[in-house]
Every structure is written in structure tokens, then in C-alpha cells.
């Protein structure tokens, strides 16, 4: 009878581990109207695929957080899914301003946008506090600047070990984190290399986690290098496989940044009409990421780099 029970329980366990799903289902089930959502990624691994699906599903009143809201948030703001932005740098990196973001802030188009603004270090501190469930996080920044004046959540406290004062920021705990990565196994154990930004902290800070990967790999691949696992399956709710899902940003070792598109976006986004036409063609006009990738065609393959493999390390077999 115990053996029977064991089989039943193993079946339960397998079912609980069925995390691999489609982007459509992941966004439908895990992103709710009014949620605070973080599509993080510092320069690389920015999940445009998820941003576009959120737009297609016409989610409402999202609070978006991110150190560097770049093109994907500009697109989401233009599409009207975003009510509020928690951020530290809203620019088109290497190019200039984000046009849709500016229109929303300066003119309230297509809707007004509430801002909660920090510096990069402040945002990083918020994520660490969120991940570690600390009531605040101390950062030696903000001295002499105007940010604490316009953001009352940036506060100063006294050290109990002398007369030093230090600024603190409160924890940030998004409802959903959507994190792009190079590879994961079916349980959501996720490996990232290259710039890791604040991906780990955001994952642990959030209530729900969607991991989007270039490749779904066998458990044995992940387990052959456990020090590289940045996000454990323990906190992952869904795994979505979406090659080129970070385009036009990049995925180290998989493809390069599409700099031409970053430059082009400045022109596309300068007028509402042009931006809407772009959304119609590249977001609303495709069913999913696979169609988007197919529509780009050979241009994406041209972004693939040559090989530069890491030297493998030996973990040793201990039995």
C-alpha cells in the first residue's frame, strides 16, 4: 500500500513540475491587470517577446519597474498598458531619449504616467531588499542631490555605530518578474552568463517568476555546472522557450544587439502615427514570437556571433 501511495505521490510531483508553457499561457495566467511587473535585464536579455505578448493581450494599468526602461517599455507605454513606472534611467542607450516615454510624461499621451524615480544603485538596493525580505536597504548615494526631495521613499537613517547617516530605500516586490536567460531545464533552473544585471535579485524579490529562454536543455546540462545557475527552479512558475526572444537586445553567445534597430526606433517613435504603425505591423500583426522571428528572416541570423567557449571546469565525481 505504501508502494502504491508512493507511485501516486510521484505522479503528483511530476505534475507539479510541468512548468514549460507557451508565452501566451504564461502571460495570460501569471500577469494580471494592475500588477507590478518587472521585465529586467541590463542591456542584454531584455524580454521583448514578453513585452509584446503583454501588449497583444491588452493588459491594463500595469506598474512597470526596471532600472533601464528602454525600447520595450517605450513600446508598452505607447500601447497604453502602463500606468506607472518605477525606474532609474529612461533613455535609448547610446541613442538618446525614449520618445513615447517623453510624450507620456510631458503631454500625458496616450495616458498620463506616474513616475517613481531612483538611481541605479537605489533600484538595485530595492531589489536586494525585496529578495532578502529586508524592511529597507542602505545605499551610500543621494547625498546632495534632488532625488530624495522628489521621492519621499528615499529616506535617511542614523547608524547605531557612530554618527554616520545613510540613505535607505524600501524593498521592491513585483507581482511578476519576467526574465530572459540563455538556458533552463524543465524545472526552471536557469543559467545566465555575460552581464547578469539584477536578474537574480528581481527573481527572488517577485511573487511570481516567468523565465524565458533561448534554449530548454536537459537537466544534466544544468546540473553539470550548478554554480552557473542564477535562478533556482524553486521560485520559477513558468518556463517559456523563445529563441531570439530578447531581440533587438542581445543574448551573450547567442546573438548580438541589433544596434540599427535601436537607432531606427528613435525615428519610428518620434511620431505617434509611426509608432502605432510599427506596433500594428510587428506586435498586433503577428500571432506570436515565432511569427516575429520569421518576419525578420535572415537578418536575425546575421546577428549570431562566432564561437568563444569557456574552459570547462571539473567538479569531480565524489562517490
Amino acid at each position, binding site marked *: 500500500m*505504501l*508502494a502504491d*501511495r*508512493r507511485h501516486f*505521490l*510521484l505522479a*503528483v*510531483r511530476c505534475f*507539479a513540475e510541468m512548468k514549460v508553457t507557451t508565452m501566451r499561457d504564461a502571460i495570460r495566467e501569471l500577469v494580471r491587470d494592475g500588477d507590478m511587473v518587472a521585465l529586467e535585464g541590463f542591456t542584454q536579455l531584455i524580454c521583448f517577446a514578453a513585452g509584446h505578448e503583454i501588449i497583444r493581450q491588452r493588459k491594463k494599468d500595469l506598474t512597470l519597474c526596471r532600472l533601464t526602461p528602454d525600447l520595450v517599455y517605450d513600446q508598452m507605454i505607447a500601447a497604453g498598458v502602463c500606468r506607472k513606472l518605477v525606474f532609474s534611467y529612461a533613455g535609448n542607450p547610446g541613442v538618446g531619449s525614449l520618445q513615447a516615454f517623453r510624450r507620456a510624461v510631458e503631454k500625458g499621451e496616450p495616458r498620463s504616467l506616474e513616475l517613481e524615480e531612483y538611481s541605479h544603485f537605489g533600484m538595485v538596493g530595492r531589489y*536586494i531588499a525585496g*529578495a*532578502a*525580505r*529586508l524592511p529597507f536597504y542602505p545605499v551610500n548615494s543621494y547625498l546632495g542631490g534632488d532625488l530624495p526631495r522628489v521621492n519621499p521613499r528615499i529616506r535617511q537613517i542614523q547608524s547605531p555605530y557612530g554618527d554616520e547617516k545613510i540613505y535607505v530605500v524600501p524593498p521592491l516586490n513585483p507581482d511578476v518578474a519576467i526574465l530572459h536567460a540563455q538556458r533552463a*531545464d524543465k*524545472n526552471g*533552473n536557469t543559467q545566465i552568463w555575460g552581464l547578469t544585471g539584477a536578474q*537574480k*535579485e528581481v527573481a*527572488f524579490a517577485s511573487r511570481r517568476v516567468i523565465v524565458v529562454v533561448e534554449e530548454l536543455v536537459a*537537466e544534466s546540462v*544544468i*546540473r*553539470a555546472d*550548478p*554554480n552557473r*545557475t542564477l535562478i*533556482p*527552479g*524553486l*521560485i520559477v512558475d513558468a518556463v517559456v522557450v523563445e529563441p531570439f526572444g530578447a531581440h533587438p537586445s542581445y543574448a551573450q553567445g547567442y546573438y548580438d544587439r541589433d544596434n540599427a534597430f535601436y537607432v531606427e526606433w528613435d525615428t519610428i517613435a518620434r511620431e505617434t502615427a509611426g509608432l502605432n504603425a510599427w506596433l500594428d505591423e510587428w506586435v498586433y500583426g503577428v500571432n506570436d514570437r515565432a511569427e516575429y522571428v520569421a518576419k525578420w528572416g535572415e537578418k536575425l541570423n546575421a546577428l549570431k556571433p562566432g564561437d568563444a567557449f569557456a574552459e570547462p571546469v571539473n*567538479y*569531480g*565525481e*565524489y*562517490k
Partner: protein
Amino acid sequence: MEYSQNELMISAAARELRGARVAFVGVGLPNIVCNLGQRLHAPALELVYEAGVFGARPARLPLSIGDPTIVTGAASVMGMPDLFQYYLQRGLIDVGFLGAAQIDKFGNINTTVIGAYAKPKTRLPGSGGAAEIAVLCGKILVITRLNKRAFVPRVDFITSPGYLEGGAAREKLKARGRGPEAVITDLCVLRFAADTREMMVTSLHPNVTRAQVQANIGWQIRFADALETTEPPSAEELRLIREELDPQRLYSR
């Protein structure tokens, strides 16, 4: 079927894991308890080793808290800051295990000193992670042998708080963890009264008498009204322990 006291403790402790999602594992008995619990009572149980390992697949029974065998083939290995902050302090861990040099009637645990702190009769190793495990894990299981030197009315030093002076004392701490749930010994299982938080015997192991238990506890112990007899290890439990989990019989003999 014959079984050892350790096997009984292991199987009794493993049953306490029913429904648990994530356990914080040390070496020795808790390691075997968790693996047995995962196979029989908590199929979704995930194990976090306090050395910094999630999803270990040890190829041998780990001999030290950071045995290299828990690293090779694991799902994720991390540094201590991540382990303590993002796993333990974040509240991911449902169950933690603690040992005890002394434990008192309210479940407070001492692993620091016997005697005065400044001039100890016996200097013990100290907290390690026990001070935070005691306040951050959802619940605590204590596995230890019953004897009068360990089960004292009041510990000399609170390394890991249980219910302090009893009653609502612990609630006032606003700790994330609920505190000790059960103390599994070689003679009986003890739990804590819902109101006073005083330790009491809730289950006697087969063939153990109340007098035997009392003789090994340093205060007048209470026995639950509905005192049970501990279910002995089943054939399946014994098979798993002996053939799969501790084939060399290092911890379960």
C-alpha cells in the same frame, strides 16, 4: 520486524514532513529524514543544504555539512549571502532541523555554553546558523536523544529561541517562523501545548514507559491526554533507509 532506535527516530521525523515544500538540511540524521520524507510523505519536497546547495543529488551519503558530493550534480550552488538572504530570510524554507546540547521545557535550545557565558564550564561550538534557522524557518524539528543533562528546566544560554517563557512570549517577537513543532527522541515524541507552549509527550515509542521518559527529563513532564504510541517503522521505510539512504549504516544503525 526488528529496527534500531535511530531507524525509529528517522521514520517518525520523516512523517513530520507531510505537506512540506522546502526543507533546510544538515548532515547526518536530518539528511536521511528529508530523503525518506520526500519519497514517502512529501513528494514535492525540495531540499536546501545550508552550505549553499539547492537540489543536491549526492552520489554518496554526505559526511560533512559541505561534502563535495552535494555540489556535483546539484541544480544550483550559491554563496552564503544568497543562502541566508534569498532562501532563509526570504521565507522560502518550511522546515528546519536543530540539534540541542540543552533544550528546555519551552523548546529553547542551547548549543553555546554550559555554565556562565563569560566563564563556561563547557564551551560548545555556538550558533552556526541555528539562531536564524530558529526564527526564519516555518517550523522547527528537533531530533535528539532523551537524557537529563539535555532536557533541563531552563537552558543556560538561548542560542535558538523556542517559546521563550511560554504562552504568547514568542508571538511578541514577530519572528517569521512559528517555532519548534516536535522534538523527536529515542523514547518518545514531544510537542508543545497550544496555550502554555510547554513541552509534553504526545507519543510514546513502542514498549517505552512513562517512567522511563520522566527519568530522562529534568522537570516534571506532562503527558498528552490522548497519548499515542509511535507507529514503528514500516517494512518499506526500513528498506529505504537500509538499502538506499544509508547502506553503510553510518547514521541509522
